[in-house]
């Protein structure tokens, strides 16, 4: 591989430097870095918003904010975390690692790649601008409907809804562009000899995600566009008074929304087995079984959407169908869990930070999946729907299953990307603080939900006070612990112990054959895979 590097050393000089480099770059590593940086910033922004919520919920009664502002924070927090933190993080890894893992010189459509990224900052501004505008007396703040945009509230809401709709349009275009690029890269740019069934698992996770994205994001775009025309151009798609049907919106939204949860997780399910095999020092168990499970989950995910509104008055046959199909998803998911555990089984395991996050991830994500099964029961969901139980469920899947998975990936690949080892002590501290405070934040929310505390309400009955206080304190610890993560990343980028090419003793795959950090242009001559 070193010959390749030497031969193309001269190209290194012809890319612009400074700000222009980042604005115009089509290099997959630059773009990956921008995605990851953007994601980290938005993670902190979205996190601060929810700390505002937890501060208000610290005690019963209204202390800090008006209910309307509370609702705005909740909705924008979710949109930012899903579209501006979790999705860009996964796309960032895809840009950085997919070409390296499949032995390609770059992504297939580099120019598209650049646009895909630069649509993100404007949409983040669109999402948050209404907060600032409201300070100057323009409009009444951001979208206050929660991230789900349900009419009639979203038809009646202020300019915040319009801003959020346009932001979703931009975010949608961005992820569709990113997905097309990934699909083309994976189909056309693999190193000679790498058949689809020899692709790294991360590539498989992303391939299914990308197809889900291009199939469902347009449905979301369509739904919010209908909302926009209902608001301003006199159509009545969802306005009951004009003959529309608000339930139709729920169908459209969740036709996107449920696949979206797997869109967020499939890339993580891709690299988790790679981390597991590295730190268990044995090949991953059940490659084929995992790939087929990905397919099964991808296919099932588009036919179960109505479990998000069991209580909206669906007819009984529909309730039964959506209940059983939802529960069926846990079968391929169980196959995945089995493979992950079997990969570790009798391996010679070591617990560096990426592995700690991964093992913690398996347990916590497991709790998320199990509580999902509880919610999938129509009879039980009548009680739990719109309660804090749901909030706790999806934070076990999205914070533990999503964000903590991404963190495992960051610690795993950061030495490869920067050429420096991160501070292992701080990494471990970050893990333990995160894992413990995460559980202390969300376990009380399960019980609050079981006891009947509704979500998205700024005040609550007195009997909920203790658990909310525990949850709020833990949430602040959780939030502050992330500063360790940020510090660790920044200091690793700046310097630190030199990382070897292989970085981890048990690491296998093409990306570990390149120097750390890899040269600006890598694999200009494709390696041959046997």
């Amino acid at each position, binding site marked *: 591989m070193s010959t390749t590097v030497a031969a193309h050393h001269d190209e290194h000089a012809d890319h612009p430097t400074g700000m222009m480099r980042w604005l115009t770059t089509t290099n997959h590593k630059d773009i990956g870095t921008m995605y990851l940086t953007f994601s980290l910033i938005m993670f902190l922004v979205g996190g601060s918003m929810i700390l505002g919520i937890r501060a208000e919920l610290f005690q019963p009664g209204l202390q800090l904010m008006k209910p309307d502002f509370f609702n705005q924070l909740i909705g924008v927090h979710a949109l930012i975390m899903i579209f501006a933190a979790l999705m860009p993080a996964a796309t960032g890894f895809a840009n950085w690692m997919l070409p390296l893992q499949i032995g390609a010189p770059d992504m297939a459509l580099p120019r598209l790649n650049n646009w895909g990224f630069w649509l993100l900052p404007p949409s983040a501004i669109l999402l948050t601008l209404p907060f600032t505008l409201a300070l100057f007396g323009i409009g009444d703040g951001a979208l206050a409907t929660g991230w789900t945009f349900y009419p009639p509230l979203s038809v009646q809401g202020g300019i915040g809804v319009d801003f959020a709709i346009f932001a979703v349009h931009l975010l949608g275009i961005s992820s569709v562009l990113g997905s097309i690029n990934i699909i083309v890269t994976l189909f056309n740019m693999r190193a000679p000899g790498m058949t689809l069934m020899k692709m790294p698992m991360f590539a498989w996770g992303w391939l299914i995600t990308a197809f889900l994205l291009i199939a469902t994001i347009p449905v979301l775009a*369509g739904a919010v566009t209908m909302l926009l025309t209902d608001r301003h151009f006199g159509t009545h798609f969802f306005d009951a008074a004009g003959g529309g049907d608000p339930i139709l919106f729920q169908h459209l939204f969740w036709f996107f929304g449920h696949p979206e949860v797997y869109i967020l997780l499939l890339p993580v399910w891709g690299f988790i087995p790679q981390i597991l095999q590295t730190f268990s020092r044995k090949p991953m168990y059940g490659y084929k079984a995992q790939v087929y499970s990905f397919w099964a989950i991808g296919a099932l995910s588009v036919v179960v959407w109505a479990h998000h509104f069991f209580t909206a008055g669906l007819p009984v046959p529909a309730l039964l169908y959506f209940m059983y199909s939802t529960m069926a998803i846990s079968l391929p998911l169980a196959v995945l869990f089995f493979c992950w555990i079997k990969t570790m089984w009798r391996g010679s395991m070591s617990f560096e930070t990426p592995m700690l996050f991964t093992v913690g991830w398996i347990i916590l994500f497991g709790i998320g999946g199990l509580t999902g099964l509880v919610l999938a029961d129509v009879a039980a969901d009548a009680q739990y729907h719109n309660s804090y139980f749901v909030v706790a469920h999806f934070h076990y899947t999205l914070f533990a299953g999503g964000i903590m998975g991404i963190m495992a990936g960051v610690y795993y690949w950061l030495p490869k990307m920067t050429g420096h080892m991160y501070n292992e002590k701080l990494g471990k501290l970050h893990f333990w603080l995160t894992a413990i405070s995460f559980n202390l934040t969300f376990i009380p929310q399960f019980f609050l939900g079981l006891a009947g505390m509704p979500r998205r309400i700024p005040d609550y009955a007195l009997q909920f006070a203790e658990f909310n206080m525990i949850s709020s304190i833990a949430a602040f610890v959780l939030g502050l612990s992330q500063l360790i993560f940020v510090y660790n990343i920044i200091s690793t980028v700046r310097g630190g112990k030199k990382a070897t090419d292989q970085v981890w003793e048990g690491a296998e795959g093409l990306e570990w054959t390149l120097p750390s950090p890899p040269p600006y242009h890598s694999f200009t001559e494709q390696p041959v895979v046997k």
Partner: protein
Amino acid sequence: MTIDIKDDALSMTERRNLANKKLGFKMVWIVIGSLVFAFALVPLYDVLCTITGLNGKTDTSASALKNNKVDSTRWVTVQFTSSVMPGLGWNFYPKQSSIKVRPGQVETVLFEAKNITSQVVAGQAIPSVTPARQRLT
């Protein structure tokens, strides 16, 4: 001029770039397809509800129940209400605010619609029933 991908004069890289663009555009068709699907779902939704009868809404089958069994042991009170879209120049209200019927009995009720503008106005009335399980069938 169209460039043939198999043209030997093209370098490996050029050939691959073309193939990438081609596949990229194919993917755009999927995107367009699902956008069309999203809008098609609006009429499809109504059609599906009608065909399968999976619907909490009213339908016309009540009038077909001529020799339905009437349950003469119970009374049911049905209340009527109406609302008009803001901006539609109509008065529209039920002429009776509620009726008492035996379950299974067919009744006729009257609604009055009045145009309160000086122009001709077309409007559409959308019936609905709650609770959703108590359909007009």
